[in-house]
Protein backbone atom coordinates (compact mmCIF):
# COMPACT_ATOMS: atom_id res chain seq x y z
CA UNK A 1 0.00 0.00 0.00
CA UNK A 2 1.25 3.48 -0.83
CA UNK A 3 1.90 6.03 1.89
CA UNK A 4 -0.68 8.47 0.52
CA UNK A 5 -3.37 5.75 0.66
CA UNK A 6 -2.72 5.06 4.35
CA UNK A 7 -2.72 8.59 5.73
CA UNK A 8 -5.75 9.38 7.88
CA UNK A 9 -6.40 12.63 9.71
CA UNK A 10 -7.35 11.56 13.25
CA UNK A 11 -5.33 12.97 16.12
CA UNK A 12 -7.15 11.08 18.91
CA UNK A 13 -5.57 7.78 17.89
CA UNK A 14 -2.20 7.76 16.14
CA UNK A 15 -0.24 4.72 15.06
CA UNK A 16 2.64 3.68 12.83
CA UNK A 17 2.06 1.65 9.67
CA UNK A 18 4.55 0.54 7.04
CA UNK A 19 3.95 1.64 3.46
CA UNK A 20 5.60 2.18 0.11
CA UNK A 21 7.12 5.64 0.09
CA UNK A 22 7.45 7.82 -2.98
CA UNK A 23 10.84 6.40 -3.87
CA UNK A 24 9.43 2.83 -3.75
CA UNK A 25 11.16 2.17 -0.48
CA UNK A 26 9.06 0.81 2.42
CA UNK A 27 9.12 2.78 5.61
CA UNK A 28 7.18 3.84 8.70
CA UNK A 29 4.28 6.26 8.38
CA UNK A 30 2.68 7.92 11.38
CA UNK A 31 -1.01 8.29 10.73
CA UNK A 32 -4.37 8.49 12.40
CA UNK A 33 -6.20 5.23 12.78
CA UNK A 34 -8.65 4.53 9.96
CA UNK A 35 -10.62 2.19 12.20
CA UNK A 36 -10.91 4.69 15.03
CA UNK A 37 -11.87 7.58 12.75
CA UNK A 38 -14.60 5.64 10.97
CA UNK A 39 -15.83 3.20 13.58
CA UNK A 40 -15.11 4.61 17.03
CA UNK A 41 -18.70 5.90 17.25
CA UNK A 42 -19.95 2.39 16.51
CA UNK A 43 -17.67 0.95 19.17
CA UNK A 44 -18.98 3.47 21.69
CA UNK A 45 -22.55 2.63 20.66
CA UNK A 46 -22.02 -1.12 21.14
CA UNK A 47 -20.20 -0.80 24.44
CA UNK A 48 -22.62 1.88 25.64
CA UNK A 49 -25.56 -0.46 24.99
CA UNK A 50 -23.78 -3.25 26.79
CA UNK A 51 -23.08 -0.95 29.72
CA UNK A 52 -26.72 0.19 29.92
CA UNK A 53 -28.05 -3.34 29.84
CA UNK A 54 -25.55 -4.49 32.46
CA UNK A 55 -26.44 -1.62 34.81
CA UNK A 56 -30.15 -2.43 34.41
CA UNK A 57 -29.52 -6.06 35.28
CA UNK A 58 -27.42 -4.96 38.24
CA UNK A 59 -30.18 -2.73 39.58
CA UNK A 60 -32.76 -5.48 39.07
CA UNK A 61 -30.67 -7.85 41.12
CA UNK A 62 -29.99 -10.21 38.20
CA UNK A 63 -26.20 -9.92 38.28
CA UNK A 64 -23.54 -8.90 40.76
CA UNK A 65 -21.14 -5.95 40.33
CA UNK A 66 -18.38 -8.51 39.72
CA UNK A 67 -20.26 -9.85 36.70
CA UNK A 68 -20.83 -6.30 35.44
CA UNK A 69 -17.20 -5.23 35.49
CA UNK A 70 -15.96 -8.59 34.26
CA UNK A 71 -18.22 -8.27 31.22
CA UNK A 72 -17.42 -4.62 30.53
CA UNK A 73 -13.69 -5.28 30.77
CA UNK A 74 -14.02 -8.38 28.54
CA UNK A 75 -12.48 -10.82 30.95
CA UNK A 76 -13.43 -14.50 31.09
CA UNK A 77 -14.21 -16.04 34.46
CA UNK A 78 -10.99 -18.09 34.25
CA UNK A 79 -8.88 -15.02 33.49
CA UNK A 80 -10.56 -13.03 36.26
CA UNK A 81 -9.95 -15.83 38.76
CA UNK A 82 -6.28 -15.94 37.76
CA UNK A 83 -5.98 -12.18 38.14
CA UNK A 84 -7.66 -11.88 41.52
CA UNK A 85 -6.07 -15.10 42.82
CA UNK A 86 -9.40 -16.43 44.09
CA UNK A 87 -10.43 -20.01 43.26
CA UNK A 88 -12.49 -20.28 40.06
CA UNK A 89 -15.40 -21.97 41.84
CA UNK A 90 -15.65 -19.06 44.26
CA UNK A 91 -15.37 -16.41 41.54
CA UNK A 92 -18.27 -18.09 39.69
CA UNK A 93 -20.35 -17.76 42.84
CA UNK A 94 -19.45 -14.09 43.19
CA UNK A 95 -21.03 -13.44 39.80
CA UNK A 96 -24.46 -13.95 41.37
CA UNK A 97 -26.12 -11.45 43.76
CA UNK A 98 -26.83 -14.23 46.29
CA UNK A 99 -23.19 -15.17 46.79
CA UNK A 100 -21.85 -11.66 46.30
CA UNK A 101 -23.54 -10.96 49.63
CA UNK A 102 -21.08 -13.34 51.30
CA UNK A 103 -17.96 -11.85 49.80
CA UNK A 104 -15.03 -10.97 52.04
CA UNK A 105 -13.70 -7.43 52.14
CA UNK A 106 -10.22 -8.54 51.06
CA UNK A 107 -11.80 -10.21 48.01
CA UNK A 108 -13.60 -6.98 47.16
CA UNK A 109 -10.26 -5.19 47.20
CA UNK A 110 -8.71 -7.73 44.85
CA UNK A 111 -11.58 -7.37 42.39
CA UNK A 112 -11.47 -3.59 42.64
CA UNK A 113 -7.73 -3.54 41.93
CA UNK A 114 -8.13 -5.70 38.83
CA UNK A 115 -11.07 -3.63 37.58
CA UNK A 116 -9.14 -0.47 38.46
CA UNK A 117 -11.98 1.05 40.47
CA UNK A 118 -12.34 2.14 44.12
CA UNK A 119 -13.91 -0.57 46.29
CA UNK A 120 -16.81 1.83 46.86
CA UNK A 121 -17.76 1.56 43.17
CA UNK A 122 -18.78 -2.05 43.71
CA UNK A 123 -21.67 -0.69 45.80
CA UNK A 124 -22.81 2.29 43.81
CA UNK A 125 -23.63 3.46 40.33
CA UNK A 126 -22.29 6.90 39.61
CA UNK A 127 -24.69 8.43 37.15
CA UNK A 128 -22.80 11.62 36.48
CA UNK A 129 -19.35 11.91 35.02
CA UNK A 130 -16.40 10.35 36.85
CA UNK A 131 -12.81 11.34 36.47
CA UNK A 132 -11.26 9.15 33.80
CA UNK A 133 -8.73 7.77 36.27
CA UNK A 134 -11.25 5.18 37.43
CA UNK A 135 -13.86 4.52 34.84
CA UNK A 136 -13.90 3.27 31.33
CA UNK A 137 -16.10 5.96 29.89
CA UNK A 138 -17.46 4.54 26.71
CA UNK A 139 -19.15 7.58 25.29
CA UNK A 140 -16.77 10.46 25.90
CA UNK A 141 -18.93 13.23 24.45
CA UNK A 142 -21.89 12.27 26.64
CA UNK A 143 -19.68 12.16 29.69
CA UNK A 144 -18.15 15.55 28.94
CA UNK A 145 -21.59 17.10 28.62
CA UNK A 146 -22.65 16.14 32.15
CA UNK A 147 -22.72 19.09 34.54
CA UNK A 148 -20.81 17.54 37.41
CA UNK A 149 -17.86 15.23 37.87
CA UNK A 150 -17.35 12.86 40.73
CA UNK A 151 -13.69 12.63 41.51
CA UNK A 152 -12.39 9.97 43.84
CA UNK A 153 -8.99 10.50 45.38
CA UNK A 154 -6.95 7.64 46.77
CA UNK A 155 -5.87 7.79 50.39
CA UNK A 156 -3.28 5.84 52.31
CA UNK A 157 -6.10 3.50 53.34
CA UNK A 158 -6.44 1.06 50.45
CA UNK A 159 -10.20 0.68 51.04
CA UNK A 160 -11.07 4.36 51.27
CA UNK A 161 -11.30 7.15 48.69
CA UNK A 162 -12.31 10.78 49.18
CA UNK A 163 -15.32 11.40 46.96
CA UNK A 164 -15.74 14.96 45.75
CA UNK A 165 -18.44 16.27 43.45
CA UNK A 166 -17.22 19.12 41.30
CA UNK A 167 -19.14 21.31 38.93
CA UNK A 168 -17.74 21.17 35.41
CA UNK A 169 -16.73 24.46 33.93
CA UNK A 170 -18.92 25.28 30.87
Amino acid sequence: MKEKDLLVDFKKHQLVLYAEKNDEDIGPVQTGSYMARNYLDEFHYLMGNLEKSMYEKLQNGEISPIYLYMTLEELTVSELAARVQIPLRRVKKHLTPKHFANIHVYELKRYADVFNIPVANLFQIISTRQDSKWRMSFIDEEEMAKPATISQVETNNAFVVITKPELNKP
Partner: protein
Amino acid sequence: MSIIPFNHVMAAHCESGTLTALLNHHGLKISEPMVFGISSGIFFGYMKTPMLAFPSVITRIRPGHIRKNFAKRTGIKFVTKKFRNPDKAEKELDKLLEQNQPVAVQVDFFYLDYFPSWYRIHINVHFLTIIGKKGDNYIVSDCYHPQIAEISRSALRKGRFARGSMAPHGFMYYPVNVPHQLDFNKEVIKGIKNTAFNMLKIPLPFLGVKGIRRFADKIVEWPKYARDTEQLAHEIFKINILLEDQGTGGAGFRYIYASFLREAASILNKPELITLSKRLLDIGDGWREISLFAARMAKNRDLNNGRLREMGDMIREKADLEEVFFKELKQIIA
Protein backbone atom coordinates in the same frame (compact mmCIF):
# COMPACT_ATOMS: atom_id res chain seq x y z
CA MET B 1 15.39 12.37 39.90
CA SER B 2 15.58 13.58 36.31
CA ILE B 3 14.75 12.40 32.83
CA ILE B 4 17.33 10.48 30.82
CA PRO B 5 17.84 12.04 27.38
CA PHE B 6 16.07 9.53 25.13
CA ASN B 7 14.97 9.75 21.52
CA HIS B 8 11.26 9.01 21.73
CA VAL B 9 9.65 7.79 18.50
CA MET B 10 6.43 5.99 17.75
CA ALA B 11 6.86 2.48 16.40
CA ALA B 12 4.72 -0.13 14.72
CA HIS B 13 4.82 -2.69 17.53
CA CYS B 14 5.57 -2.37 21.23
CA GLU B 15 8.01 -5.25 21.69
CA SER B 16 10.08 -4.63 18.57
CA GLY B 17 9.72 -0.85 18.92
CA THR B 18 10.89 -0.80 22.53
CA LEU B 19 13.81 -3.09 21.76
CA THR B 20 14.81 -1.01 18.73
CA ALA B 21 14.67 2.22 20.72
CA LEU B 22 16.89 0.80 23.46
CA LEU B 23 19.43 -0.55 20.97
CA ASN B 24 19.49 2.81 19.17
CA HIS B 25 19.95 4.55 22.53
CA HIS B 26 23.01 2.37 23.14
CA GLY B 27 24.47 3.31 19.78
CA LEU B 28 23.48 0.44 17.49
CA LYS B 29 21.87 1.76 14.34
CA ILE B 30 19.13 -0.70 13.51
CA SER B 31 15.58 -0.38 12.22
CA GLU B 32 12.44 -1.86 13.72
CA PRO B 33 11.80 -4.06 10.65
CA MET B 34 15.32 -5.48 10.98
CA VAL B 35 14.79 -6.28 14.67
CA PHE B 36 11.41 -7.82 13.81
CA GLY B 37 12.78 -9.87 10.94
CA ILE B 38 15.89 -11.17 12.71
CA SER B 39 13.60 -12.25 15.57
CA SER B 40 11.24 -14.08 13.17
CA GLY B 41 8.41 -11.93 14.50
CA ILE B 42 5.83 -12.68 11.81
CA PHE B 43 3.47 -15.56 12.48
CA PHE B 44 -0.16 -16.63 12.54
CA GLY B 45 -2.28 -18.48 15.05
CA TYR B 46 -5.99 -19.10 15.55
CA MET B 47 -6.63 -19.15 19.29
CA LYS B 48 -9.57 -20.44 21.26
CA THR B 49 -8.93 -20.99 24.99
CA PRO B 50 -10.88 -20.56 28.26
CA MET B 51 -8.75 -17.49 28.99
CA LEU B 52 -10.12 -15.71 25.94
CA ALA B 53 -13.68 -14.41 25.91
CA PHE B 54 -13.94 -15.21 22.19
CA PRO B 55 -11.81 -16.91 19.52
CA SER B 56 -9.00 -14.68 18.38
CA VAL B 57 -6.04 -14.51 16.02
CA ILE B 58 -2.39 -13.72 16.61
CA THR B 59 -0.14 -12.53 13.84
CA ARG B 60 3.23 -12.51 15.64
CA ILE B 61 5.28 -14.95 17.68
CA ARG B 62 4.87 -15.45 21.40
CA PRO B 63 5.37 -12.21 23.39
CA GLY B 64 8.85 -11.94 24.81
CA HIS B 65 10.35 -14.02 22.02
CA ILE B 66 11.23 -11.08 19.81
CA ARG B 67 13.82 -10.01 22.39
CA LYS B 68 14.87 -13.61 23.17
CA ASN B 69 15.36 -14.54 19.53
CA PHE B 70 17.18 -11.30 18.80
CA ALA B 71 19.53 -11.84 21.74
CA LYS B 72 20.18 -15.47 20.78
CA ARG B 73 20.93 -14.68 17.14
CA THR B 74 23.00 -11.52 17.59
CA GLY B 75 24.79 -12.43 20.83
CA ILE B 76 23.83 -9.08 22.37
CA LYS B 77 23.38 -9.54 26.11
CA PHE B 78 20.39 -8.32 28.04
CA VAL B 79 20.00 -8.05 31.77
CA THR B 80 16.55 -9.45 32.51
CA LYS B 81 14.81 -9.57 35.86
CA LYS B 82 11.52 -10.71 37.32
CA PHE B 83 10.30 -9.97 40.82
CA ARG B 84 7.89 -11.44 43.36
CA ASN B 85 7.96 -8.28 45.44
CA PRO B 86 6.68 -5.00 43.89
CA ASP B 87 8.72 -2.93 46.35
CA LYS B 88 11.96 -4.62 45.29
CA ALA B 89 11.00 -4.20 41.62
CA GLU B 90 10.46 -0.50 42.15
CA LYS B 91 13.69 -0.09 44.08
CA GLU B 92 15.65 -1.79 41.31
CA LEU B 93 13.96 0.38 38.67
CA ASP B 94 14.77 3.56 40.60
CA LYS B 95 18.39 2.46 41.04
CA LEU B 96 18.79 1.90 37.29
CA LEU B 97 17.19 5.24 36.45
CA GLU B 98 19.60 6.96 38.81
CA GLN B 99 22.40 5.28 36.86
CA ASN B 100 20.94 6.86 33.69
CA GLN B 101 19.88 3.46 32.40
CA PRO B 102 16.56 3.46 30.54
CA VAL B 103 14.69 0.25 31.32
CA ALA B 104 12.09 -1.69 29.35
CA VAL B 105 9.23 -3.08 31.43
CA GLN B 106 6.35 -5.40 30.66
CA VAL B 107 2.90 -4.22 31.77
CA ASP B 108 -0.82 -4.81 31.49
CA PHE B 109 -1.97 -2.19 28.96
CA PHE B 110 -5.18 -1.57 30.93
CA TYR B 111 -3.49 0.53 33.62
CA LEU B 112 -1.76 2.97 31.27
CA ASP B 113 -3.94 5.99 31.99
CA TYR B 114 -2.11 8.27 29.55
CA PHE B 115 -4.18 6.52 26.88
CA PRO B 116 -7.91 7.26 26.51
CA SER B 117 -10.09 4.83 28.45
CA TRP B 118 -11.77 3.35 25.36
CA TYR B 119 -8.35 2.29 24.03
CA ARG B 120 -7.28 0.32 27.09
CA ILE B 121 -7.78 -3.43 27.37
CA HIS B 122 -6.46 -6.11 29.66
CA ILE B 123 -3.42 -7.49 27.89
CA ASN B 124 -0.39 -8.37 29.94
CA VAL B 125 2.19 -8.17 27.17
CA HIS B 126 2.75 -4.52 26.47
CA PHE B 127 6.31 -3.21 26.57
CA LEU B 128 7.46 0.34 27.23
CA THR B 129 10.59 2.15 28.35
CA ILE B 130 10.93 4.00 31.62
CA ILE B 131 13.27 6.95 31.16
CA GLY B 132 12.93 8.95 34.35
CA LYS B 133 11.05 9.86 37.46
CA LYS B 134 9.44 13.11 38.54
CA GLY B 135 8.12 13.09 42.09
CA ASP B 136 5.71 10.18 42.34
CA ASN B 137 5.36 9.77 38.57
CA TYR B 138 7.48 7.81 36.14
CA ILE B 139 8.39 9.21 32.75
CA VAL B 140 7.57 6.83 29.94
CA SER B 141 8.61 6.42 26.34
CA ASP B 142 5.76 4.31 24.99
CA CYS B 143 6.06 3.70 21.27
CA TYR B 144 2.25 3.67 20.92
CA HIS B 145 2.02 7.22 22.30
CA PRO B 146 2.93 10.26 20.20
CA GLN B 147 4.78 11.99 23.03
CA ILE B 148 6.69 11.08 26.15
CA ALA B 149 4.12 10.38 28.87
CA GLU B 150 3.83 10.19 32.64
CA ILE B 151 2.36 7.42 34.76
CA SER B 152 1.78 7.38 38.48
CA ARG B 153 3.74 5.05 40.69
CA SER B 154 0.57 3.17 41.70
CA ALA B 155 -0.64 2.69 38.10
CA LEU B 156 2.76 1.43 36.99
CA ARG B 157 2.87 -0.95 39.92
CA LYS B 158 -0.57 -2.34 39.03
CA GLY B 159 0.49 -2.75 35.41
CA ARG B 160 3.78 -4.45 36.24
CA PHE B 161 2.21 -6.86 38.71
CA ALA B 162 -1.10 -7.70 37.09
CA ARG B 163 -1.82 -11.43 37.29
CA GLY B 164 -3.50 -13.72 34.77
CA SER B 165 -2.33 -14.94 31.36
CA MET B 166 1.29 -14.11 30.57
CA ALA B 167 1.55 -12.09 33.78
CA PRO B 168 4.52 -9.67 33.76
CA HIS B 169 5.81 -10.50 37.29
CA GLY B 170 7.60 -7.16 37.25
CA PHE B 171 9.66 -8.16 34.20
CA MET B 172 12.26 -5.63 33.12
CA TYR B 173 15.28 -5.65 30.84
CA TYR B 174 18.00 -3.53 29.33
CA PRO B 175 20.85 -4.33 26.95
CA VAL B 176 24.52 -4.29 27.93
CA ASN B 177 27.72 -4.07 25.84
CA VAL B 178 25.86 -3.22 22.66
CA PRO B 179 28.19 -3.03 19.64
CA HIS B 180 27.83 0.07 17.47
CA GLN B 181 27.90 -2.04 14.37
CA LEU B 182 26.85 -5.53 13.45
CA ASP B 183 27.13 -7.60 10.32
CA PHE B 184 23.55 -8.87 10.09
CA ASN B 185 24.18 -11.43 7.39
CA LYS B 186 23.97 -14.61 9.50
CA GLU B 187 21.25 -13.23 11.76
CA VAL B 188 19.00 -12.32 8.83
CA ILE B 189 19.37 -15.79 7.33
CA LYS B 190 18.57 -17.48 10.65
CA GLY B 191 15.60 -15.19 11.13
CA ILE B 192 14.15 -15.96 7.71
CA LYS B 193 14.72 -19.72 8.03
CA ASN B 194 12.98 -19.78 11.39
CA THR B 195 10.08 -17.72 10.02
CA ALA B 196 9.59 -20.13 7.13
CA PHE B 197 9.63 -23.04 9.55
CA ASN B 198 7.10 -21.38 11.86
CA MET B 199 4.69 -20.63 9.04
CA LEU B 200 5.03 -23.96 7.21
CA LYS B 201 6.21 -26.74 9.48
CA ILE B 202 4.81 -26.52 13.00
CA PRO B 203 2.63 -29.66 13.29
CA LEU B 204 -0.32 -28.01 15.01
CA PRO B 205 -3.51 -27.28 13.08
CA PHE B 206 -4.04 -23.77 14.49
CA LEU B 207 -0.57 -22.34 13.85
CA GLY B 208 1.13 -20.96 10.76
CA VAL B 209 -0.53 -21.37 7.37
CA LYS B 210 -2.64 -24.15 8.88
CA GLY B 211 -3.81 -21.57 11.44
CA ILE B 212 -4.95 -19.24 8.66
CA ARG B 213 -6.97 -22.10 7.14
CA ARG B 214 -8.46 -22.93 10.53
CA PHE B 215 -9.50 -19.28 10.93
CA ALA B 216 -11.12 -19.47 7.47
CA ASP B 217 -13.01 -22.62 8.46
CA LYS B 218 -14.05 -21.54 11.94
CA ILE B 219 -15.26 -18.00 11.32
CA VAL B 220 -18.67 -19.38 10.27
CA GLU B 221 -19.04 -20.84 13.78
CA TRP B 222 -18.56 -17.51 15.55
CA PRO B 223 -22.30 -16.77 15.93
CA LYS B 224 -22.66 -19.69 18.36
CA TYR B 225 -20.11 -18.13 20.75
CA ALA B 226 -21.84 -14.73 20.88
CA ARG B 227 -24.59 -13.93 23.36
CA ASP B 228 -26.33 -11.70 20.79
CA THR B 229 -25.87 -9.93 17.46
CA GLU B 230 -24.24 -6.94 19.10
CA GLN B 231 -21.52 -9.02 20.71
CA LEU B 232 -20.90 -10.81 17.40
CA ALA B 233 -20.63 -7.43 15.65
CA HIS B 234 -18.15 -6.28 18.30
CA GLU B 235 -16.02 -9.40 17.84
CA ILE B 236 -16.07 -9.13 14.04
CA PHE B 237 -14.93 -5.48 14.42
CA LYS B 238 -12.02 -6.77 16.43
CA ILE B 239 -10.68 -8.61 13.39
CA ASN B 240 -9.89 -5.20 11.95
CA ILE B 241 -8.37 -4.03 15.22
CA LEU B 242 -6.21 -7.16 15.57
CA LEU B 243 -4.93 -6.89 12.00
CA GLU B 244 -4.54 -3.13 11.68
CA ASP B 245 -4.88 -1.21 14.88
CA GLN B 246 -3.29 -3.05 17.74
CA GLY B 247 0.33 -2.37 16.86
CA THR B 248 1.05 -4.50 13.79
CA GLY B 249 2.40 -1.92 11.36
CA GLY B 250 -0.59 -2.77 9.17
CA ALA B 251 -1.97 -5.98 7.63
CA GLY B 252 -1.07 -8.21 10.58
CA PHE B 253 2.68 -7.44 10.44
CA ARG B 254 2.86 -8.28 6.73
CA TYR B 255 3.87 -4.72 5.78
CA ILE B 256 6.67 -4.45 8.33
CA TYR B 257 8.00 -7.87 7.30
CA ALA B 258 7.97 -6.71 3.66
CA SER B 259 10.11 -3.78 4.79
CA PHE B 260 12.51 -6.21 6.49
CA LEU B 261 12.81 -8.27 3.27
CA ARG B 262 13.69 -5.08 1.39
CA GLU B 263 16.57 -4.46 3.81
CA ALA B 264 17.52 -8.15 3.78
CA ALA B 265 17.83 -8.05 -0.03
CA SER B 266 20.53 -5.45 0.29
CA ILE B 267 22.36 -7.16 3.17
CA LEU B 268 22.37 -10.60 1.53
CA ASN B 269 22.75 -9.26 -2.00
CA LYS B 270 19.65 -11.18 -3.10
CA PRO B 271 17.46 -9.00 -5.34
CA GLU B 272 14.89 -11.83 -5.42
CA LEU B 273 13.93 -10.72 -1.93
CA ILE B 274 12.79 -7.38 -3.31
CA THR B 275 10.34 -9.22 -5.55
CA LEU B 276 9.11 -11.23 -2.56
CA SER B 277 8.85 -8.05 -0.56
CA LYS B 278 6.48 -6.60 -3.20
CA ARG B 279 4.45 -9.84 -3.18
CA LEU B 280 4.11 -9.64 0.57
CA LEU B 281 2.88 -6.06 0.28
CA ASP B 282 0.17 -7.34 -2.08
CA ILE B 283 -0.71 -10.15 0.34
CA GLY B 284 -0.87 -7.52 3.07
CA ASP B 285 -3.24 -5.44 0.95
CA GLY B 286 -5.44 -8.54 0.78
CA TRP B 287 -5.45 -8.81 4.58
CA ARG B 288 -6.34 -5.14 4.76
CA GLU B 289 -9.32 -5.79 2.48
CA ILE B 290 -10.42 -8.54 4.85
CA SER B 291 -10.21 -6.22 7.84
CA LEU B 292 -12.20 -3.51 6.05
CA PHE B 293 -14.75 -6.13 4.97
CA ALA B 294 -15.07 -7.22 8.60
CA ALA B 295 -15.59 -3.64 9.77
CA ARG B 296 -18.32 -3.03 7.17
CA MET B 297 -20.05 -6.32 8.00
CA ALA B 298 -20.09 -5.46 11.67
CA LYS B 299 -21.24 -1.88 11.17
CA ASN B 300 -24.14 -2.98 8.94
CA ARG B 301 -24.90 -6.00 11.16
CA ASP B 302 -24.59 -8.05 7.99
CA LEU B 303 -23.49 -11.15 9.87
CA ASN B 304 -25.39 -13.99 8.24
CA ASN B 305 -23.85 -17.33 7.36
CA GLY B 306 -23.35 -16.30 3.73
CA ARG B 307 -21.27 -13.25 4.67
CA LEU B 308 -19.19 -15.24 7.12
CA ARG B 309 -18.52 -17.84 4.43
CA GLU B 310 -17.49 -15.07 2.08
CA MET B 311 -15.00 -13.80 4.64
CA GLY B 312 -13.82 -17.37 5.20
CA ASP B 313 -13.12 -17.69 1.48
CA MET B 314 -11.13 -14.46 1.48
CA ILE B 315 -9.07 -15.72 4.43
CA ARG B 316 -8.52 -19.12 2.80
CA GLU B 317 -7.14 -17.39 -0.26
CA LYS B 318 -4.57 -15.65 1.97
CA ALA B 319 -3.54 -19.03 3.37
CA ASP B 320 -2.86 -20.32 -0.15
CA LEU B 321 -0.88 -17.22 -1.10
CA GLU B 322 1.18 -17.29 2.09
CA GLU B 323 1.95 -20.97 1.74
CA VAL B 324 3.43 -20.37 -1.71
CA PHE B 325 5.18 -17.22 -0.49
CA PHE B 326 6.93 -18.79 2.49
CA LYS B 327 7.96 -21.83 0.46
CA GLU B 328 9.63 -19.55 -2.06
CA LEU B 329 11.23 -17.51 0.72
CA LYS B 330 12.66 -20.69 2.22
CA GLN B 331 14.10 -21.73 -1.16
CA ILE B 332 15.77 -18.40 -1.77
CA ILE B 333 17.56 -18.54 1.59
CA ALA B 334 18.45 -22.23 1.48
